[in-house]
C-alpha cells in the first residue's frame, strides 16, 4: 500500500504569519483519534539519511517532527540519543547546518517542524537571533528541556515575540502548582513525561498513567503529547482518549541504525494501525 501524505502544497497560514503550532495540531486532531510526532537527531548518521527518514515519516502519516540539534551534554536524554548526538557532533555537525537543513524540510513538507535542543545551543546562538531564525525558516516550536520558566524570562519573551511555541514539560513529579505555571508558559502543546527517567526508557501504560494524564489535562487546555517509551501500536492505542499526540523518540533512531531508513515507513504505518 502506497499513500502520499502532506506533500508540498499550499501552506496553512493564519493572519499573514505561518500558522501557530497549537492551531495546526488542533486542525490535524479534528479528524484523528491521536496524532503522531516523531523525532530525529540532526546529522546522525548524516543529513542524507535524515532526509530519507523524514520523507518516510511524512509520507507515512506523521503529523509533526522534532528535529534535535545535537548538544554535547544532553542531560535529559538516554543513551541512544546521547550517542547519536555525540557522533553527529564528532563528525562535525554545526548548528548552522541544522538550521539550513530544517529550512529545507519546512519548505519541502507541510507538517509542523520543531527544534528540540538544549538551552546552551540557544544561549550561544543568542536567544533573540535564534527565535528570529526559527520564524524566518518556518520552525513552529521548540522543545528545550533545560530552560524552566523561572530561569527563562527573556527566552520565553523572545519566543512569544516571534510566534515560536516553546513546548514545556509536565512530569509525574510536578505538583499541581507547578503544572499551573508550566502549563501557562507552554505553547503548542504540553509534553507529558509519563514517568521519571530519561528518553528511551520503557513506560508502563497502566492506571497510573491514566490518572496522571487526567491530572495533566486539568492544568492545561493545550493538546497533550506523551513521549518516552512508545514502541508499538498497542502503546499508541493506550493513549487514545487520554492524550492528543503520541511522541516517538529514540525507537526510530534504533530502527534506522539497525535496519536503515526504509524501515521507518512500515514502522510508522504499524503505529498508525495500518496493515
Amino acid at each position: 500500500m502506497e499513500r502520499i501524505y502532506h506533500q508540498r502544497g499550499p501552506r496553512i497560514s493564519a493572519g499573514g504569519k505561518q500558522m501557530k503550532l497549537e492551531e495546526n495540531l488542533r486542525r490535524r486532531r479534528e479528524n484523528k483519534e491521536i496524532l503522531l510526532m516523531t523525532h530525529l537527531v540532526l546529522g546522525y548518521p548524516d543529513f542524507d539519511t535524515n532526509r530519507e527518514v523524514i520523507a518516510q515519516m511524512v509520507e507515512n502519516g506523521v503529523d509533526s517532527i522534532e528535529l534535535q540539534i545535537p548538544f554535547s551534554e544532553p542531560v535529559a536524554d538516554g543513551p541512544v540519543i546521547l550517542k547519536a548526538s555525540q557522533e553527529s557532533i564528532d563528525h562535525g555537525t554545526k548548528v548552522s547546518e541544522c538550521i539550513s537543513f530544517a529550512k529545507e524540510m519546512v519548505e519541502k513538507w507541510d507538517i509542523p517542524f520543531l527544534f528540540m535542543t538544549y538551552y546552551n545551543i540557544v544561549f550561544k546562538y543568542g536567544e533573540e537571533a535564534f527565535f528570529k531564525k526559527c520564524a524566518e525558516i518556518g520552525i513552529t516550536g521548540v522543545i528545550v528541556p533545560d530552560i524552566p520558566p523561572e530561569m527563562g524570562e527573556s527566552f520565553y519573551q523572545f519566543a512569544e515575540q516571534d510566534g515560536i511555541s516553546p513546548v514545556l514539560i509536565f512530569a509525574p513529579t510536578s505538583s499541581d502548582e507547578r503544572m499551573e505555571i508550566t502549563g501557562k508558559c507552554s505553547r503548542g502543546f504540553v509534553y507529558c513525561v509519563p514517568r521519571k527517567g530519561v528518553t528511551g526508557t520503557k513506560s508502563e501504560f497502566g492506571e497510573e498513567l491514566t490518572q496522571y494524564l487526567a491530572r495533566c489535562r486539568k492544568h492545561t487546555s493545550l493538546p497533550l503529547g506523551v513521549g518516552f517509551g512508545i514502541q508499538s501500536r498497542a502503546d499508541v492505542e493506550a493513549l487514545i482518549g487520554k492524550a492528543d499526540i503520541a511522541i516517538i523518540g529514540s525507537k526510530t533512531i534504533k530502527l534506522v541504525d539497525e535496519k536503515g531508513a526504509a524501515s521507518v515507513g512500515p514502522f510508522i504505518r504499524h503505529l498508525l494501525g495500518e496493515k
Partner: protein
Amino acid sequence: MNPPTEDGHYGRWGGSYVPEVLHDTFKRLKEDFAAAKADPDFWREYVELMSTYSCRPTPLTFAENLTRHFGGAKIYIKREDLNHTGAHKANNVIGQGLLVKRMGKTRVIAETGAGQHGVATATMAAKFGFECTVYMGEVDVLRQRPNVFWMEKLGAKVVPVTDGSRILKDAINEAFRDWVTNVDDTHYVLGTACGPAPFPEMVSWFQSIIGIEARKQILHYHHTLPARVYACVGGGSNAMGIFQGFLDDDDDVELVGVEAGGHGLSTGKHASRLCSDDASPGMAQGYKTMFLQNNDGQMLETHSVSAGLDYVGVSPILADLNDKKRVRFESATDVEVIEALNLTMKKEGIIPALESSHAFVQAFKEAPGLPKDSAIIINQSGRGDKDIFTIAHALKDPSWKEFIINEAREYQQGESK
C-alpha cells in the same frame, strides 16, 4: 559572602536550569538546605562529626624550608590532605550525608573525576548506611583505578561512563540521568561548588569550614592576615572553602585561584575557564558559568595532568568573584605542577595531590616577591598518594615501570604470590 539571588544567581552566573522532572526535588532540596543552614544545631553536628570521623580542624603547617628556599613571604599550608579519605572532598560529602539523613532519603549517587569525591561519597554512604552508585568517566576509571578499587570495596557501585569524552562532565550528565529516574529515594551528592542552585551555595557552605579554621589559625600563628591565599580550581569547592575565610577582608587578602594550564594555554589543551580565551559564557549541567565550549556551544575536550581539575565549567560563585575582581585567576601547566610537587616533597616531606600542586606552583612564583614579614596560605586540597600511577608515570620512574611489568607478569602467568 553575599548569598545568591532567590533563583540562585551570583551576578550573571549560576541559577538552576533543571529538567522538569527534577523541579520538585530541587525545590525540596533548597528548602531543606535552607532550613539546615538556618539551624545552628545542624552546623554543630557537622563540625562535631568532622572532628570525630575526620580530623578537623586540619592543621595549618608552616613550611619553613620552602619559605627559606624562596626567601620571601612565610608560606603556610592548610592541610586538607589530612582529612579522612585524603582530601577536602570529605567536608562536602559528610555535610551532604547529614542533609540526606535529614531528608530521609536512602540512596546517594555521585559523579567523580579524580576519584576523590567518589571515594569520599562511598565512604560517607558506608558510614550512613546509604546505597551508593558512583559515575565516573571511563578515561578517569582508567587513570584512577586505585580509587575505583576502594569505592567498590567500600560497597559502592562504580559505573564507568562510556559516553561523550568519558571524563568528569560526562559522569555528571550520567548522574543527572540517574537522578531524573530515581528522584524519590535518591540524593545526588554533587562534588563541587557547581551545578544547579542550591549546590554551589551548599557545597561552598560545607567547605567554608576550611576558611573558618584557616583564618583563626593564621591569626594565631602569624598574628595578622595573610597577604595572599592560593587554591587550585577545578569545580571550585576547595577554593571557595578557603576563600570564604577571607572574602570579607576586601583588599587586605588577595585571593588567587589556579586553574589547570595543561600543556599551556596557547595549545588549547588545558582546563582554564577563567584565564584563557577558550571559554565563554554558557549554560550546561544546570547552571550558567564560563564554559570551555566552541562557537556552537558544544563543550570542548579539556586536558590536565590532574583528573580533578579536568572539567569544562567552574563555580558560578567564582565566575562572579572574577567579574568583581575579588579573586585573581592564574593557571599552572602540567610541567610546572610536577616540578612544584617534587620540590614540596623534598623540602617539606609533604605530598600534595596533583590538583593541589597547581596552587603551589603559583604561590612559588609569587612568594619571592613578597615581604619576609608577610604570610601566604596554600590550600593543600588533597594528598598525592592517589596519584601514584600518574606521578610515577610523569616522573618516568624506571623501577615503578619494572614493578608494574612484574606484577602484570605474575598475574598473566597466574602465579600465586
